[in-house]
């Protein structure tokens, strides 16, 4: 049974970023991307949980949901959607540059992604500020009332809508903030010249995360800003 023994021929010295428990960079790359995908599965179910609650109440209280969406700044939300899509594009290009050994391209694209990501957060905080001032923050600070007193009965339900608004966008913004932090780290490494055609998994993984956050927003925008009054025009 000595054939079980495994002869380890002397090979060239290991790559500096190869962790000791992996055989080679390929294995390490596959492990990191699979890890990120698995993490994104978790994230999908994480957001899925709130979305489930959101939909249950959206079906129960369509009028309040429509009224809630009316309070949103569609221009800001739409702009942000575009901003995020652009940042996704630049992120994808950053990965591509890394794949092609293009250090300058990688750095440039990462910086652009960073700029757009921050821009998104800026616009978002502007919206948050406006909501806060209008009393659209649920809880003790809430003091918003519909202009038409006849529909004031909808107020608690609109507050519920706003819970989901703050919850969903807040969770998304939290992901963006983490994303920006990660981007800074990746940028520093790219600057240092860590990445090249054989070792760019961190950039790729960063990209997966960033695109996922973008996808979340693709859904949040219509869910929170663009709800029509289905068959319930009388309330609005």
């Amino acid at each position, binding site marked *: 049974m000595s054939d079980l023994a*495994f*002869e380890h*021929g002397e090979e060239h010295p290991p790559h500096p970023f190869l962790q000791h428990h992996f*055989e*080679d*960079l*390929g*294995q390490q*790359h*596959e*492990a990191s*991307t*699979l890890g990120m*995908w*698995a993490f*994104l*599965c978790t994230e*999908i*179910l994480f957001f*899925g*949980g709130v979305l*489930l609650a959101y*939909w*249950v109440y959206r*079906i*129960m209280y369509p009028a309040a949901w429509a009224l809630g969406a009316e309070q949103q700044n*569609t221009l800001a939300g*739409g702009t942000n*959607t*575009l901003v995020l*899509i*652009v940042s*996704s*594009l630049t*992120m*994808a*290009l950053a990965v*591509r540059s890394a*794949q*092609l050994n293009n250090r300058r391209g990688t750095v440039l694209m990462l910086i652009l992604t960073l700029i757009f990501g921050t821009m998104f957060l800026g616009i978002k905080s502007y919206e948050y500020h406006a909501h806060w001032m209008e009393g659209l923050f649920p809880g003790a600070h809430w003091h918003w009332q519909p202009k038409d007193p006849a529909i004031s009965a909808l107020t608690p339900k609109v507050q519920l809508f706003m819970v989901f608004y703050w919850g969903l966008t807040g969770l998304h913004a939290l992901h963006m903030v983490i994303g920006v932090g990660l981007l800074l780290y990746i940028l520093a490494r790219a600057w240092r010249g860590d990445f090249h*055609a*054989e070792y760019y998994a961190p950039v*790729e993984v960063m*990209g*997966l995360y960033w*695109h*996922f956050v*973008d*996808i979340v927003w*693709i*859904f949040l*925008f*219509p869910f929170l800003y*663009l*709800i*029509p009054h*289905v*068959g319930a025009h009388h309330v609005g």
Partner: protein
Amino acid sequence: MSDSLPPQGGHVHTPLHHVTPISTYLTVFAALAIGTLLTWYASTLDLGMMNTPIALLIAVIKATLVILFFMHVLHSTRLTWVVLIAAFLWLGVLFVLTFSDYLTRAWPIY
């Protein structure tokens, strides 16, 4: 590494990665931007019961584009597909079975 062994176990030796042409990225980007405008435009129309499904459909298409091209799933291993499909399958289970209760309750609303 002894070559006589099948490349089993989790060992993948060369990073064989597809490099997507810039033109593809730009096309996808354009589609996403148009999709955004389209969602917004559709929401200003009164389509009755159809508003929500249309908004959902556009969002799903946009998300699919991002997943397939920006996230390179189109050129990824079968495993990546499986992982992704699993996540959405489970999400579907969560929604479908929960709504199996809400939609058949005599009195769903308080």
